[in-house]
């Protein structure tokens, strides 16, 4: 069961990261980047690092992607 969760999280990270790379719109890429953070939260939790999982959930998926979105708006990128 744990092996299946690890496999699913790894596969999700790979797929989401790859699709974030080939997105034509940068805002979509930022949203998919949040998905990478979500997959790594699952991995950290399975590997018994709840502190790191909480940090990744708050900083990696929350604040940093919001800062990315605000910087994108600040750059006025037409997409």
């Amino acid at each position, binding site marked *: 069961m744990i092996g299946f969760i690890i496999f699913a999280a*790894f596969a999700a990270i790979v797929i989401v*990261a790859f699709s974030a*790379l*080939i997105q034509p719109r940068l805002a979509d890429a930022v949203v998919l980047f949040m998905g990478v953070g979500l997959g790594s939260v699952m991995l950290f939790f399975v590997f018994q690092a709840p*502190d790191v999982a909480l940090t990744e959930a708050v900083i990696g998926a*929350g604040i940093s992607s919001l800062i990315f979105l605000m910087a994108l*708006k*600040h750059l006025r*990128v037409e*997409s």
Partner: protein
Amino acid sequence: MSIKRNLPTSLISGFALSAVFVLTLLKILLENIPQHIKRAGDELLTLNESEGVANAVTTVVVYFRGFDTLGEIAVLFIASLGIGLMLSANTHCEIKAKSNFMLSSGSKLLFPIITLYGLYVMIYGHLSPGGGFQGGVIIASAVLLLLISHQNFEVPHSVIVLLETFAGVSYVLIGLIGLFTLDVFLGNFLSHDITEMGMLVSGGVIPIIYIIVGIKVGSEMSSIVQNLLNRSENV
């Protein structure tokens, strides 16, 4: 201004990244990792019980590597300072878009709950997963919710200055008190008996330092978000 993205480079780097991930996955799944492997932190974690703190990670972050944490806070302060300097050209802001009724009411309902959760994560950092960094960022996200939902809401600059100065000065002061009493910077000069492990008041100086870290991180992240949001609404 538009950023033209180089698609073949993205594809090649994507394939390389995928290959690395798949190889790592195969290595983990195919090789049986021995259970009795000696990890890097084991020697450090055997010392954990001497401080009477239930969460071993907190002991490492705040006590064994407390000086590094002071450096990390300084790095965060410099980042906040840089963003403030870069975006200070046009400080007067007015948000044109008016948020609707549902957003403003819902944010008023959610703000105390998120703040309470952040304070819980911060204060119980030495007992459960979490701590000052995580709790501070959770409080900053609550401030962000109010910033994007209310037009006239703004954290006063004097409050941020007061909180940051208080937190930074008291961190260094606690370290210096430890230096003068126990000859170690950030020495644990309060009582930290092993029998109190798991109580709210335990671990001596460690929870106090983590609460101070939380105050500093929360105010710095709030100021970063506020600077970015004001500036980006203005353009």
